[in-house]
């Protein structure tokens, strides 16, 4: 189930072009919220007068308190439990999973997770490589393609756009097997791409969502700027590199968040094309490696590995809460 500024699919496809960046939008929204609060306009279902009445305030405050406790139990406790288990000797976790350090803390789980048998740091590095390459391919395809279709606008551009948009609503499952065969026998390159990062990087570029997002952003840029640059003698390459790209930081940010989160979370496709062969540590990302070693790894070090794989995104999330929460919505709703 598998996140991004709150952009709904309809908004992307049908909605009004937005001229403002996600960040300035969030800023103006916050300012508006503050102004509304000062003017007493920041209200929900319950009005200020209703909130003052005890028979409304008491049950409502109780409901909110119960909700808070519930959210702590459901949202926070599983993560805290995992962190505790990472520092607990295996026999203790197996016998009394909910006891808190009955026989003290051990660091050996952590050191084993980084040791020769698990080598979690190698797989974490692979995850970064997978995400970085997928990000690069997606940015190149989306910006150059979006530039050609929205700014240069060749005659045949409409047909190309239509073909891109047509794939937007296609369930990924249709592509699974033919895409796998393509990776096994790539036409031009020759030789199998199996167990290479290219097998994940290249197909990730064929994201109609990215192209449509970038096209809609470029459409919203004032065309006078392009015309002025062309009058001043800027060719298409100059226009792309010096004018359009620097203006595209907001949309590149959106594509980046999508690309990185998807690459981080994806399991089915990398599991299929990165089986590992003789040296899984050289290609497999965490999402592929962690299920593979589940049956053969001692519980303590295994839970320590899961904890390390959890701690990293949780810290990123707490640091960049606003980006996640203003954008995380749709990634979370669409489970693949």
């Amino acid at each position, binding site marked *: *189930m*598998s*996140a991004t500024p709150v952009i709904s*699919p309809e908004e992307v496809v049908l909605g009004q072009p937005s001229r403002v960046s996600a960040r300035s939008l969030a800023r103006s929204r916050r300012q508006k919220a503050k102004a*509304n609060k000062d003017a007493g306009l920041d*209200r*929900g*279902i319950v*009005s200020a007068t*209703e909130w003052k009445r005890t028979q409304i305030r008491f049950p*409502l405050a109780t409901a*909110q308190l119960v*909700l*808070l406790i519930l959210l702590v139990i*459901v*949202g*926070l406790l599983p993560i805290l*439990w995992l962190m505790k288990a990472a520092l607990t000797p295996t026999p203790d976790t197996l016998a009394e*999973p*909910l006891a808190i350090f009955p026989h003290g803390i051990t660091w050996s789980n952590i050191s084993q997770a980084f040791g020769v048998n698990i080598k979690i740091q190698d797989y974490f590095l692979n995850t970064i490589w997978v995400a970085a390459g997928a990000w690069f391919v997606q940015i190149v*395809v989306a910006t*150059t393609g979006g530039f050609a279709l929205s700014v*240069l606008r*060749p005659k045949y*551009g409409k047909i190309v756009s239509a073909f*891109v948009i047509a794939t937007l*609503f296609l*369930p990924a*499952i*249709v*592509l*699974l*097997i*033919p895409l796998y*065969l*393509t990776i096994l026998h790539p036409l031009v390159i020759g030789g199998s791409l199996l167990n290479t990062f290219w097998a994940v990087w*290249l197909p990730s570029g064929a994201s109609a969502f990215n*192209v449509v997002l970038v096209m809609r952003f470029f459409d919203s840029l004032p065309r006078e700027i392009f015309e002025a640059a062309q009058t001043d003698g800027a060719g*298409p*390459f100059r226009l*792309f590199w010096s004018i359009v790209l620097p203006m595209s930081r907001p949309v590149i940010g959106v594509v980046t968040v999508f690309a990185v989160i998807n690459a981080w979370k994806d399991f*089915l496709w990398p599991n299929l094309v990165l089986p590992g062969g003789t040296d899984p540590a050289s290609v497999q990302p*965490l999402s592929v490696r*962690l*299920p593979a070693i*589940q049956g053969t790894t001692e519980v303590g070090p295994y*839970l320590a590995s899961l904890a390390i794989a*959890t701690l990293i*995104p*949780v810290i990123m999330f707490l640091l960049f809460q606003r980006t*996640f*929460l203003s954008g*995380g*919505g*749709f990634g*979370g*709703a*669409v*489970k*693949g």
Partner: protein
Amino acid sequence: MTWVRRGGLANLLFLLPLLCIFGVFSWGPIVESFIISLQHTNFIVTTWADPFWANFAFVLKDPTFGLAVRNTGYFALLALILGYPVPLVLAVVMSEVKRFKGLFSVLAYLPVVILPVVSVLLWKTEFYDAGASGVFNTILSWFHIPPQPWIQTAATAMPSLVIEATWAAAGGTIIIYLAALTNVPPELYDAAEVDGAGIWQKLWHVTLPQLRGIMLVTFILQIIGTAQVFLEPYLFTGGGPVQSTTTIMLLIFQYAFQSSDGGSNLGSATALSLMLAAFLAVFSAVYFRVTRSWSQN
């Protein structure tokens, strides 16, 4: 030359990455999937299916297919009953929080941040441990409830999968509803109060109608998502016990890569994925046609 001078070459150069990547990894495979569905192929030998619908007939006659459809429907239904109302109710209560609102959202979103594979493995090996010392069974024992088999029996496996999937996904949907709730114009509540509406009436006559559009979208997204559920059944149970969690996606995967006769039936796998895609396309089209009049206020 005039074509080059008018920028024809530059246009093409900028389109080149898109055309290559989409051609090889999207448009090409789409066409190919229609061809493969009409062929018998196992990575090595390829022959045309005779009659041409042989792969489709094979899937429809396979007793596991009916089972997979039923299991996928069961997963979707349970996920809807459990996963659809919960985020909505939580978001409405959260939107009325006056202090530490951010804390509520952060807590609700935490499960979404965890790598989905890690969530499933953690639940599988520890939380759903069917022994008396499993995490959930230990908690149940505090309330004198006997240990549950969780993913170990056919009857309890699917609900267990749905509980984990809902836990993992609810945070994302809550954030969508929270954003929609802040966009409800406050004047509407003021006006409702002038007409003497209480809290429940405001909720029913103002809030819910204002959320209708987004609720319709989250509904279809959830249906499309659950129809393609793969991660949970694949990692939790591998389709068992006794095929009780074999979903359509899992069956496609088994046809293609885990065939019982050691071979691999790519034609049938592709035929089934085309049927699933066609069903989802028709379902979404009908859904949007039927609900179009509802989403307008």
